[in-house]
């Protein structure tokens, strides 16, 4: 789960990582009181997860309260990568002379977390050194390793001191809060050499959330995604019109590819999970039934531990509950003949192979 910038910065504060003074607002009317705390000039930033926030006009530097109010209402009405910001961060504008990049991320091949630091841009940079990567032991980032990175990217004095402290604190945050990624970009260098985190990107390990119940209140945005998560389905909303449902993440992923190759556009990815019972199949179909963008439903099942007869019975029940989108199903594997018999007197269209079902669902437009 990815945190919004201000949520990440709250964690930064808690771990002693310096961030500018800021206030979160949800209404332009809150701009005045926020500015009293933050001061002018200030930066107003849309709190969205989508990339390209700056390019979309979601960040503005303001020099007066009137300008701040105006920009706040403008940004609250933006759509940034399909997201409408519901919160804004009003932050003290920083004057700085250089910028760095610092992140701690999972290196899947090394099977360890790594610290990545780059010194780039800024007017004070004597030599532009490339990206420095430092593997982090499972027990934590040793001070000496952080010092070595600081030297390798050419930091000294106050900047080096700050960098070492921030790197060690950021790693402690990532380790204790069980993040997949903790990134500061940019990490500003001010004229006195001190460092300040101007942005945050923090991604939590979803699988570790059971150990961090405090994050549960931050959970999904999308009501259907939330419902799917509670039911234990992997569900991702996509921008097309064909709902794709199957058993097994890889199988559903490959079905999306087949649909796209045939010229269709998937409306969602829904993985029923292994060993699905009839009730799960029903819950999944009732969910995609309510997905407004789904004009047709494609079901791709390779039965094994998941019994094809359970799938067919579930499908039949939901189809018989009342009008719904046309369903195209490929059901293959053990007991498939019985499964097909169960569905014979329903409007579900049956196919023997995935490519056949895909061709039919795509060309039905």
């Amino acid at each position, binding site marked *: 789960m990815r945190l919004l910038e201000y949520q990440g910065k709250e964690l930064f504060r808690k771990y002693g990582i310096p961030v500018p003074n800021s206030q979160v607002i949800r209404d332009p009317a809150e701009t005045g009181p926020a500015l009293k705390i933050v001061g002018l000039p200030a930066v107003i930033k849309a709190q969205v997860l989508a*990339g390209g926030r700056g390019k979309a006009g979601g960040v503005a530097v303001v020099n007066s309260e009137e300008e701040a109010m105006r920009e706040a209402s403008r940004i609250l009405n933006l759509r940034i990568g399909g997201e409408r910001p519901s919160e804004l961060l009003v932050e003290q504008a920083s004057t700085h002379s250089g910028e760095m990049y610092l992140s701690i991320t*999972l290196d*899947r*091949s090394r*099977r*360890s*977390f790594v610290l990545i630091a780059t010194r780039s841009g800024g007017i004070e940079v004597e030599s532009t050194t490339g990206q420095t990567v430092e593997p982090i032991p*499972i027990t934590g980032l040793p001070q000496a390793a952080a010092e070595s990175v600081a030297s390798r990217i050419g930091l000294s004095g106050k900047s080096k001191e700050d960098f070492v402290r921030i790197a060690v604190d950021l790693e402690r945050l990532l*380790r204790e809060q*069980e993040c*997949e990624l903790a990134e500061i970009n940019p990490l500003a260098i001010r004229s006195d050499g001190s460092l300040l985190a101007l942005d945050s990107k923090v991604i939590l*390990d*979803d*699988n*570790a959330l*059971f*150990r961090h119940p405090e994050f549960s209140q931050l959970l999904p945005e999308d009501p259907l995604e939330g419902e799917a998560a509670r039911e234990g389905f*992997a569900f*991702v909303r*996509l921008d097309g019109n064909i709902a794709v449902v*199957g*058993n*097994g*993440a*890889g*199988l*559903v*992923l*490959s079905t*999306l*590819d*087949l*649909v*796209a*190759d045939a010229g269709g556009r*998937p409306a969602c*990815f829904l*993985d029923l999970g*292994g*060993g699905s019972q009839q009730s799960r199949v029903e819950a999944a179909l009732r969910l995609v039934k309510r997905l407004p963008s789904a004009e047709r439903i494609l079901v791709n099942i*390779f*039965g*094994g*531990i998941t019994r094809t007869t359970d799938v067919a019975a579930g499908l039949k029940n939901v189809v018989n509950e009342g009008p719904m989108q046309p369903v195209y199903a490929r059901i293959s*594997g*053990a007991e498939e003949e019985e499964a097909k018999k169960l569905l014979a007197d329903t409007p579900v269209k049956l196919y023997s*192979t*995935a*490519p056949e079902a895909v061709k039919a669902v795509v060309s039905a437009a």
Partner: protein
Amino acid sequence: MILPEQDEPIIVQGITGKYGALHTKLMLQYGTNVAAGVTPGKLGETVEGVPVYDKVSRAVEKTGARSSIIFVPAPYFYPAVEEAILAGVKLVVAITEHVPIRDELKMVALANAHGVTVVGPNTPGVIIPARRVKMGIMPAPSFRPGKIALFSRSGTLMYEIANQLSTNGFGQSVALGIGGDPINGTTMIEYFDWIRTRDDVDAVVAVGEIGGDSEERLASYITDTKFGKPVFAYVAGRAAPKEKRMGHAGAIIYGNYGTAESKISAYRAAGVQVAMTPTEIPTLVRKTLG
């Protein structure tokens, strides 16, 4: 790395759970020697006639097992894998899904220190049809004895592709799920290293998906080490959006890192034959192996 021989005893951790009990039955039906189960506090019970102990060390002592398959839920996974490793088990098949990354990293460090092979987590397991060894949850009828090594990041795709290979006359010497998480106990390259000189393997099928760079690294390995056997690959997720986790924890594209295009072009540059759909795999295999 070791895999069990025919009739070699294995242990099931989490045997009294619904899932553990069901698959114990299916593994026994296949002909696998499930010799003991472990569930803390359930000493003296039996599941499908298999005795249950409350410690792995006790089960190892009683059966001489070198291998254990783990079904316990994610919050109890790390203590279970640690217990298996410290009890002297040499192969762990970790079926458990949703294991936190930090627990997986600790698991890798501990397994490496003790010379233990971990398959998974989040894997359907491993099946060796010729030995009637099934340490996993895969549907047995899809798999036949033969000389293809099948390694997959996805469970159902492994079943589907195995089924198509089997129906086309290409059985498997081994079929193994490497796991759907960002961290795998054993990597694709390590499995390739293990089969590269085995004469019961004529060709390898690698089923991958978006996320990470294990396919790219495998491609370099194939080129750099002059891997001698034909390799066939499929990569799921060409149509997947960026920054969205597609079911598996490991199936996510960040920026241009982890895209299907990158994996496919790396494979092609290494001389790997890439299928565009799962159904194309047997066709490609037939063209090469006849």
